[in-house]
């Protein structure tokens, strides 16, 4: 990479992952069924990001 990344670019993915995680953490508290499924999907995103990085960003 040549230039410096702006702050927005550095924190875009981390912010999205954090927002999804918070949605998931609260979702399962508010009910069962679909709300549990939403929490599973959103809290799986940090794991998915690491698996993606291990495949696509490994050098």
């Amino acid at each position, binding site marked *: *990479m040549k230039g410096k990344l702006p702050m927005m670019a550095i924190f875009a993915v*981390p912010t999205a*992952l*954090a927002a999804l*995680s918070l949605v998931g953490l609260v979702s399962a*508290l508010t009910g069962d069924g679909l709300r549990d499924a939403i929490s599973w999907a959103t*809290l799986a995103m940090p*794991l998915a990001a690491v698996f993606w*990085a291990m495949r696509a960003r490994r050098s």
Partner: protein
Amino acid sequence: MSRQSIRVWYLVHKWTSLVCTAFLLMLCVTGLPLIFHDEIDALTEDQSAMETAGPASSGEGPGLQPLDAMLGKALAARPGEVPVFMAFDNESPILTVTTAPRPDSPAADMTIQLFNRTTGAAVGQVRDEGVMHFILQLHTDMFLGLPGMLFLGAMGVLFLAAIVSGVVLYAPFMRKLPFGTLRVSRSRRLKWLDYHNLLGIVALAWMTVVGATGVINALATPIIQVWQMGELAEMTRAYAGREALPPSRYGSLDKAMAAARQAIPGNNPQFIAFPGGSFSSRHHYAVFFQGATPLTERALTPALIDAETGALTDVRPMPWYVLALTYSQPLHFGDYGGLPLKMLWAALTLFTIVVLGSGLYLWLGKRRSSLDARLREVESGGRLAPAE
């Protein structure tokens, strides 16, 4: 970010992490089995009592024995003791009665008996022993009681400071690196530096929530004491200064429950706290009701009933600081969204262990290099590694 502010954040990150890492590793390792507490208990304990079918013991109506009869059986089995709690179940007719030598006896001196409220039969005792109980105690207070809890709470505060400073340092480190960069083939240090950053930043929100709710859980005892000395004292002001009501003058529980139900219709009781314990005054049965929706079933509302006359004294929802504690428990233990959520909780705990371990490794590896060299490493995204 200026070199000077990076230096400050680096030192904050280094010292807050170093002080709390050993304790956090212990908390992660003991926390892992605690996530699956229910599943492990089901495998190792006799669950037949808990699986009894029938009307819920928290309900009312035909087929359920009077509470006075259940309490009488519990006290007959523990002569000389006084009741402390009676707790109900929403799924089975099982209820528990906790007794102790005195109303304010420590938890270790309490006995918890199980009863079937449809047959009236005793179905055993809850035993606070075994490996899971050992792990829970280690995780909560390291067998040191309140000072141990507060100490681990302080370690949680340092963990939160380490997370914040780590996120701040992530910015200069990643200035020239795309998200997810994992340089595994250059040096072992660079590999662990990249894993430390990636795992830390992807699990940021989860670690912050589990850390913050852990700190709140560590404050459980003072939080309940503040409620008891503040709101509860206000609710029972008319009784201030009176002698404690002796157990021989306790009136009918069923009458008290009927008065409490009338005050909060449509909700089910979760437990009754008897006079003199940490959840009531010295004169009241405190009947704690659950909300009726999934979100409010954890938010308790106590109805205070004069234990002698059975008349309602006051009803008031728990204040915000007790609600914060109530909602911190599921958010800390991850036991509220089924097995898949528990497995994700375990995976994120493993991430945390790797972040803690790699942080320790990174510090040990270049401990003797100068601060300037280590700051250059942060600013260059690991391209300039500190020399020996």
